[in-house]
């Protein structure tokens, strides 16, 4: 994915930081007549509360005109409320195009402070549904797994 080099680079600069670790997100294959790739956003919230940090947001970056792709970002309503609305789009190293069904691995930012977080992944699909998957996540990363039922497949955090 496009943002990978950015994260790798920042990881190198940060030196032997605690971070590293990845999350993987599965966009499920759906047997529906009209399929549009979902908008997906992932973010971390400190477990004790605090500002959310967006890890990535996949939306229709290229759609312009009267109804640009940004028009439907608020359909990911939890992400929008928790901080999406405060981000200017496109966001360097964060935003990218929507993804076809499959499993995607996203590196976590290298500068995450150790501690307890909640990982949130939210998907919203045109003519489809919306789903939010959450799982506790600790930094340094320990294995964690959650799964959606409709719009998202497995969400996995791992040290590598």
């Amino acid at each position: 994915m496009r943002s990978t080099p950015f994260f790798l680079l920042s990881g190198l600069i940060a030196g032997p930081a605690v971070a590293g670790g990845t999350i993987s997100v599965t966009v499920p294959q759906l047997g529906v007549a009209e399929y549009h790739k979902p908008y997906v956003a992932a973010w971390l919230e400190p477990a004790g509360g605090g500002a959310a940090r967006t890890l990535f947001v996949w939306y229709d970056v290229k759609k312009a005109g009267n109804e640009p792709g940004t028009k439907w970002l608020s359909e990911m309503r939890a992400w929008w409320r928790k901080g999406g609305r405060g981000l200017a789009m496109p966001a360097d190293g964060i935003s990218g195009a929507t993804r076809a069904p499959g499993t995607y691995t996203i590196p976590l930012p290298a500068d995450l402070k150790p501690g307890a977080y909640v990982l949130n992944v939210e998907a919203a699909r045109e003519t489809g549904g919306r789903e939010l998957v959450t799982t506790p996540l600790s930094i340094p990363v320990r294995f964690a797994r959650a799964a959606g039922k409709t719009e998202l497949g497995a969400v996995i955090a791992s040290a590598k």
Partner: protein
Amino acid sequence: MTSIAARLLTAAALFSLPASAYAHRGWFLPSATVFSGTDSYVTVDAAISNDLFFADHQPMRLEQVRAWAPDGSEATIENGATGRYRSTFDLKLDKPGTWKIGTQSSNVSGTFKLNGEERRVGGRGMGGAPGGPGGPVGAQRPPAVAVADIPPDATDVKLTEAVMRNEIFVTAGAPTDRVFKPTGKGLELAPVTHPDELVAGETASFRFLVDGKPAAGVKVTVIPGGKRYRNGEDARDFATGPDGVVKLSLPAAGMYWVNASLTDDKPSAPRATQRRMGYTTTVEVLLP
């Protein structure tokens, strides 16, 4: 007076235009309250009806509808149209933040006696044809007069000032609070919880001000939309505390009609002895 009658009267006073209904609720229904992207449009239905939010009685007149941008400047509504049962208009949200759309009205009505006969002041039927219900068959009731036309020898002058607001709020991007700056006149909303950040299962706190100061004892009625698809009205009544704050529990997602009302004896209109204030808004509650 029963509480229902009081509420209906309040709703009636919201619309001083003779053609508008009385004994019904005025409402704005925005297509959404939370917007992303740039230059989004909100489209709004505006009507007066009993059941929320079904346009089946009278349209709200658009002449008095105004809009304000997040910076407080006045904005222009577009594509206004008035149909048989509802009006509709658009507003382009070309600046980020919270926008306000609403109407405001004030009028004075009441009664006085002249030579022992009761006459009406203001309100409906003023300057219209005499007659109407209440008198014996065939009797003609004299028309209502304006406040300025109350004769000097009138007795038992009882005038009530009605000050009504109906406002909605929509937000493009992150919410702002500039449009909540109080004018210091009448009943106003100074939200603690931003009205465009309401989530099902949470409690919303709204502060109501009268003449710019927190007002205790304001009655707040909350009615969910979708009346046709349930049996009950499901209206719930709340009241503000000493700090002017009312806490509204919002169990389910959806659009809600919120109406606050208070009567006091501090009218600003000359000769009025009572002031009836109403504040109506429509809020959207989203799922978590």
